[in-house]
């Protein structure tokens, strides 16, 4: 699946997007964040406060317990500050 990062999440991860293949045991957004955090220090830093991170699946906001099965694109970003 395609993953995108924005604002300081992107800066901390060190890339704007990538394609990842998490194991089948990773079923929810929460589990995906935990899995990514274990990939490197950069991810661990980006996701050090997982409750702060907002997530969208295929352009729609989702909660941390949302299932990731079937997702084409998952995005991680900080709380929004537009307007």
């Amino acid at each position: 699946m395609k993953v995108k990062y924005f604002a300081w999440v992107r800066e901390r991860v060190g890339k704007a997007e990538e394609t990842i293949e998490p194991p089948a045991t990773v079923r929810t957004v929460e589990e995906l964040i935990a899995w990514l955090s274990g990939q490197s220090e950069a991810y661990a830093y980006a996701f050090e406060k997982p409750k702060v991170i907002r997530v969208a699946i295929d352009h729609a906001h989702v909660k941390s317990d949302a299932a990731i099965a079937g997702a084409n694109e998952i995005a991680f970003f900080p709380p929004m500050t537009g307007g």
Partner: protein
Amino acid sequence: MTFPVTTCPVTIRIQQDDFDIAREIAVLTGSRTDIGAAVSFTGICRSDEDSAKIAALSLEHYPGMAEEEIRRHADEATSRWPLNGVTVIHRVGRFMPGQNIVLVLTASQHRHAAFQAAEFLMDYLKTNAPFWKKEESATGTGWVEAQARDDEAAARWTRS
């Protein structure tokens, strides 16, 4: 609650270029005579944030989702109030104090619907549309933190 079908064009644009408020109102109202109220809100880059001087502001967005998210809220606004038109223009890029950032225009037969819909759209834009601001000041750059007061402002529109 739904309203009788009226023509309610919804225009959403995300762009680097500035916008012309008078022109956008003219486009929205056009030659129609059923519109009795047009409300516009303009968000402007200001030079002070908690007494710290801001030199510039950079805005980044999530292309695709930003437009879709604004459209979802515009659609909700048109279902909640009898609107005759909605225009939302959000700029991205780097801005200096005094420059325009966002425009929300709402048109209706009467002012209350136009005022409320504009406020609703702005409150949701601030908390739900995927845009992020980065401030540049004399002491460096930093991402703007989300404000609890913005969440509270958006929450008051939630219907049980």
